[in-house]
């Protein structure tokens, strides 16, 4: 009932709610650098003009690019105006307006790269190509069998290109002009190619709205508004005239076909990456946790303070922020790590803080008298630690360590933020490709469970085995 009222209100009111992703969205829609509370961009101006032409008020709804179609169908907004390309797979679940702009794609490489001058060169030399996820370029690359690295926004893609984490970036000319053209360390490789179109995306049930929008797009083209907007953004070229002379179907449509076998294999590969990340990070955490724990409980004043600062910093800030910091922040001081290594190091540093606390409590749970007995039997501190204290502390630490490892397993999903192709990234991409968030989601959950359950089971068995040997501490009474 409420929903019906809302949608009635959407039709009846003179408001056109349009969705776009403003993060890294220049020059389409982005926060105005001069006035960060307001937005600007050619799509922003076009949406305003379109609404005015339809005698409606434009209301901008910021959203996430990767799931923009799902958001449209969830009625978070009424139309998509976001450099949105018509593709065959999208056509199954929505309507497209007629094109209001024809775009081309541009390949970009580093200035010193003389080997790549076309997409074909990337393929023959086995180089990876970065692009935005879920766009015409990504579909083109995937169908062409290129090594693709998907990014959430163009900024990350061009930054990785500069840092050498990818060797080429394929992007719409509009984004390429804004983010790469003036960058002195990058250069275009070859000429722009592939003509695609930007359209307004509309829900399948809103055919009336679609035809009103088509009429308005024609009017804006006829009265020169479209040309004025795109000229202002230096994106007008003669190509656009085709829209007027030849009708609508003058652009290339990319599509995405989904092959379930291929999809499952992709998921399996992503799961392997997840396992790799989790084990790598845990090894760092387990090893680094020991000096941290010792430093915090037995070190001098300075060591103690440093360890505490480290531990509180990594426990007190989100791991996602830490990963972004390492991935995008460290290159500023000249340290550039690939994504997978960043994820392992970042998660490892983070979990080391947690492991150190597990160790510290475990060591403190072993009575001081155990050290004394070992000393009086002639053991030196290192031997006493290795043979007497550590084995006891280990069985105390094992259950919380298992918990942490399972948690770390799941936290590897944060690596999607730095474009590592692990299981959560794979889920987003494949679910987007198929629009089967439920089906693929269940499969992904099964993958996670298939990895974490045996781990928990094995740890539990190990615990029981150790417990059968002994419960740990015999007596902890106080003595004089």
């Amino acid at each position, binding site marked *: 009932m409420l929903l019906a009222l809302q949608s009635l209100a959407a039709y009846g009111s003179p408001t056109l709610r349009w969705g776009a992703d403003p993060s890294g969205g220049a020059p389409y829609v982005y926060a105005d650098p001069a006035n960060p509370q307001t937005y600007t961009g050619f799509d922003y101006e076009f949406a305003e003009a379109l609404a005015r032409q339809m005698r409606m008020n434009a209301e901008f709804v910021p959203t996430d690019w990767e799931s923009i179609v799902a958001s449209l169908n969830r009625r978070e907004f009424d139309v998509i105006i976001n450099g949105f390309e018509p593709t065959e797979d999208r056509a199954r679940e929505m309507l497209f307006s007629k094109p209001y702009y024809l775009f081309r794609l541009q390949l970009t490489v580093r200035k010193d790269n003389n080997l790549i001058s076309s997409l074909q060169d990337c393929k023959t030399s086995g180089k990876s190509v970065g692009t935005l996820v879920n766009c015409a370029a990504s579909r083109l690359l995937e169908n062409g069998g290129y090594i693709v690295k998907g990014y959430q926004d163009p900024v990350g893609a061009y930054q990785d290109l500069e840092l050498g984490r990818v060797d080429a970036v394929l992007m719409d000319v509009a984004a390429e002009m804004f983010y790469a053209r003036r960058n002195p360390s990058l250069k275009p490789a070859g000429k722009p190619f592939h003509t695609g179109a930007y359209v307004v995306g509309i829900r399948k049930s809103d055919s009336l709205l679609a035809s009103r929008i088509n009429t308005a797009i024609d009017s804006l083209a006829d009265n020169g508004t479209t040309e004025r907007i795109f000229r202002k953004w230096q994106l007008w070229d003669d190509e656009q005239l085709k829209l007027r002379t030849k009708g609508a179907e003058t652009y290339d449509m990319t599509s995405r076909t989904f092959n379930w076998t291929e999809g499952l294999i992709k998921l399996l590969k992503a799961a392997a990456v997840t396992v790799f990340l989790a084990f790598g990070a845990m090894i760092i955490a387990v090893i680094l946790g020991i000096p941290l724990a010792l430093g915090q409980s037995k070190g001098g004043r300075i060591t103690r303070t440093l360890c505490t600062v480290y531990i509180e910093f990594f426990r007190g800030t989100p791991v996602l922020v830490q990963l972004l910091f390492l991935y995008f922040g460290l290159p500023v001081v000249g340290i550039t790590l690939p994504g997978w290594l960043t994820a392992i190091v970042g998660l490892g540093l983070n979990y080391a803080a947690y492991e150190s606390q597990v160790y510290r409590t475990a060591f403190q749970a072993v009575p001081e*008298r*155990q050290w004394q*007995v070992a000393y*009086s*039997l*002639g053991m030196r501190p290192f031997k006493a630690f290795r043979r007497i204290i550590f084995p006891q502390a280990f069985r105390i630490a094992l259950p919380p360590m298992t918990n942490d490892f399972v948690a770390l397993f799941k936290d590897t999903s944060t690596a999607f933020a730095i474009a590592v192709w692990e299981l959560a990234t794979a889920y987003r991409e494949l679910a987007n490709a198929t629009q089967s968030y439920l089906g693929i989601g269940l499969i992904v959950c099964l993958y996670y469970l298939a990895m974490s359950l045996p781990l928990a089971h094995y740890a539990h068995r190990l615990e029981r085995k150790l417990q059968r*040997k*002994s419960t740990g*501490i*015999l007596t902890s009474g106080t003595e004089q």
Partner: protein
Amino acid sequence: MITISGIGKTVGATPLLSNVSMEFPAGKILGVIGPSGNGKTTLLLCISGLLPFDRGSITIGITSITAEESSLRSEKIWQFRRQSGIVFQHLHLFPHLTVLENITEAPVHVSGKPKAVAEKEALALLEKLGIGQHRNKYPEELSGGEQQRVAILRAIAMNPEVLLLDEPTSALDPIRSGDVRNLLQDFAATGHTVVIVSHSVRFLRGFADYLAFMGKSELIEMNRTQQLLENPQDERTREFLHHSEMN
């Protein structure tokens, strides 16, 4: 032989030991008695080299440490610690090791004794105390008295000059306590010194060769067991013995 020369220890403003001196021959058993909180355990820990003291020196056999050396992690303190073995009131067996491993751990991994030899020796002692059948059990599976026997064997397996026992009566199980007595007496008879801290005069009577009475942080008097019990010189000793006989 133990020689203690004027050792003192103060924590904050509280004296735990004030100017304690004594000389004690090898081959004998010494009982240290006195009310709780009077520094008996502190004295034991100082002799073991596990607790630093502020003044004086302690000599066991030919190894001695001064107050300064007792607080350093020097080579000397590690050597000094090997002169004595200690059995704590709460025993503190290694919970992750079996009975046999508890006893052979130090001989094998500190002295480098061949494992088979260490195990054979340990087994002989376990059999002697009637707990050979428990050799592969873990400490928590044993009774308090059995655990105590293992703790004593763990200490004497390193063949220390001095064996120190803190309040052994709290764990002793009466049925077998004769075995433990024999073991300690045999150990003393082979030229070792045994020091037992206890508040139970009844336990030490007819077992310890000498008795020392500790008043508040000081050694009041020390004598042959019978003489100290029958003819105490100090009023505080008399009062303590009077009270403990009433209990």
